[in-house]
């Protein structure tokens, strides 16, 4: 087990290097160069040269690359051009709020998606199955900001059940915090539900025709226990894979959701960096997203062994 974990962590290193290289190349794609983009057209030659030196842009590209990798590996993501604070501290400031949103929506997705998927598989081609499939397809078709805006209009503005501006201060009682979280979490949770439901249904359909299910039924195992301990347990691997893979999309969608529901978080930070042309902050955020994706993928791989003892850690 330990050696598997170590090997899996070592595998993440080349992945991280590829991502960092891609981000490095991407930032160099800025038309003109970063210094003139940051300072605008009116900047004097002297201030341009000063900024180029500060950003290391006067160095040859391969030295810039090595310096970039070196800094990232030592945890130095640079300073935000607009606020002057380090990228890390900017991120740490808003990270709890994004994590809160992400965890809540994954929880909603699992709580709604698993039973729905099981029900659809059990009533295959019946009306429950049909409705669940159509609903999940609609859920998958919603771009996160579209469903977010529609929910905002209906539940917050027309019905007035939820605050329109969200919890911008980050303070307030637990109930108030929960009310502010409800709509954004539901917005992402519904999309998550659609994914989980779809894969649960497909996995359950595959498992339910297996011989050992028939054997269990013949032995007199009740329908509830049959589904939960026999069928569902063996469907968990594809479900975990989907939840893991979806995590990246979830981060992307949370950007849009945070903007719409006016929540503090990584999404609002990205939008602010875009509007302020804060390229170091943008670059730092991309690196952090890349690391998040790699960590989740690695954890997903490790989770396989926990649910399925047949997966060998070798």
């Amino acid at each position, binding site marked *: 087990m330990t050696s598997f974990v170590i090997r899996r962590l070592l595998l993440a290193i080349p992945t991280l290097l590829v991502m960092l290289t*891609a981000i490095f190349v991407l930032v160099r794609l800025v038309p003109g160069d970063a210094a003139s983009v940051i300072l605008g057209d009116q900047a004097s030659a002297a201030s341009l040269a000063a900024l180029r030196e500060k950003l290391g842009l006067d160095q040859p590209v391969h030295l810039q690359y090595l310096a970039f990798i070196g800094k990232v590996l030592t945890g130095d993501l640079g300073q935000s051009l607009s606020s002057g604070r380090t990228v890390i501290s900017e991120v740490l400031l808003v990270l709890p709020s994004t994590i809160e949103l992400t965890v809540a929506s994954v929880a909603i997705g699992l709580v709604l998606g698993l039973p729905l998927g099981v029900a659809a598989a059990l009533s295959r081609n019946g009306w429950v199955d049909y409705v669940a499939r159509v609903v999940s397809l609609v859920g998958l*078709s919603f*771009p996160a900001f579209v469903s977010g805006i*529609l929910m905002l209009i209906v539940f917050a503005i027309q019905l007035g059940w939820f605050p329109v501006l969200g919890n911008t201060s980050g303070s307030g009682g637990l109930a108030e915090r929960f009310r502010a979280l409800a709509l954004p979490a539901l917005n992402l949770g519904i999309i998550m539900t659609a994914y989980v439901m779809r894969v649960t249904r497909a996995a359950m359909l595959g498992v339910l025709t297996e011989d050992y299910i028939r054997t269990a039924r013949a032995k007199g195992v009740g329908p509830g226990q049959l589904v939960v301990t026999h069928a569902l347990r063996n469907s968990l691997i594809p479900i975990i894979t989907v939840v893991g893979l979806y995590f*990246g*999309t979830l981060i*992307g969608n949370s*950007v849009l959701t945070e903007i719409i529901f006016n929540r503090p978080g990584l999404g609002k930070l990205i939008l602010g960096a*875009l509007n302020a042309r804060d390229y170091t902050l943008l670059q730092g955020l991309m690196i952090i997203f890349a690391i998040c*994706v790699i960590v989740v993928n690695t954890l997903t791989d490790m989770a396989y062994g926990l649910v399925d003892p047949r997966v060998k850690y070798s």
Partner: protein
Amino acid sequence: MSAVASTAVDIRPGGLWLAFSQNRLAWIGLVLLALIVLVAIFAPWLAPYDPLEQNIVARLEPPSAEFWLGTDAYGRDVLSRLIYGARISLFVGFVAILIAMLIGTAIGVLAGYVGGLFDQIVMGVLDVLLAFPTLLLGLMIAAMLGASLDNLIIAIAVTEIAPFARVARAPTITLRQRDFVEASRSYGCGPFRIMFRHILPNMLSDVVVMSSLWLASAIRTEASLSFIGLGVPPPAATWGGMIREGFENILDAWWLAVFPSLAILATVLALNLLGDALRDASDPKSRAR
């Protein structure tokens, strides 16, 4: 050679058509998509007003007999902008997917045919690209290049290259060992002739079937980037951009955001229904389910 049978798609019109025509949802998707494409093509004849014409007297008018879907903050007709917006969404989506298909398929076939270390490196890099959230990748590229039609297309195309390469690679690996490929090699065909004349036609249907689903994803990304402000710059009418403007007036003019939202939803849903049906029809395993 039985592995080939499971990857090769039955593209004889009869087989695919039969499976497709029995799927009610596929018909809904097809009709919906055809309607949207027709609206985009005939936009100048269908739109009641000029989508860019401002009318300060009629600002933020709710839906009425005169303006069916209301007017925006500049007094522009929402219905006309919606109709013209279909052109940009579909155009950007189609062109981006076409570019991604050309590049991605070429990479996939090349990696699958050459194999070895080259294959491992190329697919390793693409897997990393695949793991990165589509929206964030597109956002990053569009932000770095600047907001314009060309850059938007490039950004979306890049996000969709990796899936095409994956789908093109798998059948290439099985096809390159087939007897007819071996035969053409012994006749003296060069590798590029084999790849393009012998392997490509045999796996193209896999790629085409998937492209409908990825077109849905491309259109979703386009709308999202336009909403963030990285799409085709104003005053052009784009669905994502209209929602962005509607969002700024969300407290007193709900119609600005709602109608373009429904248009995006309908387009993506139509493509997903169609793509699902095509995939099911071409895959006997999922058809049985």
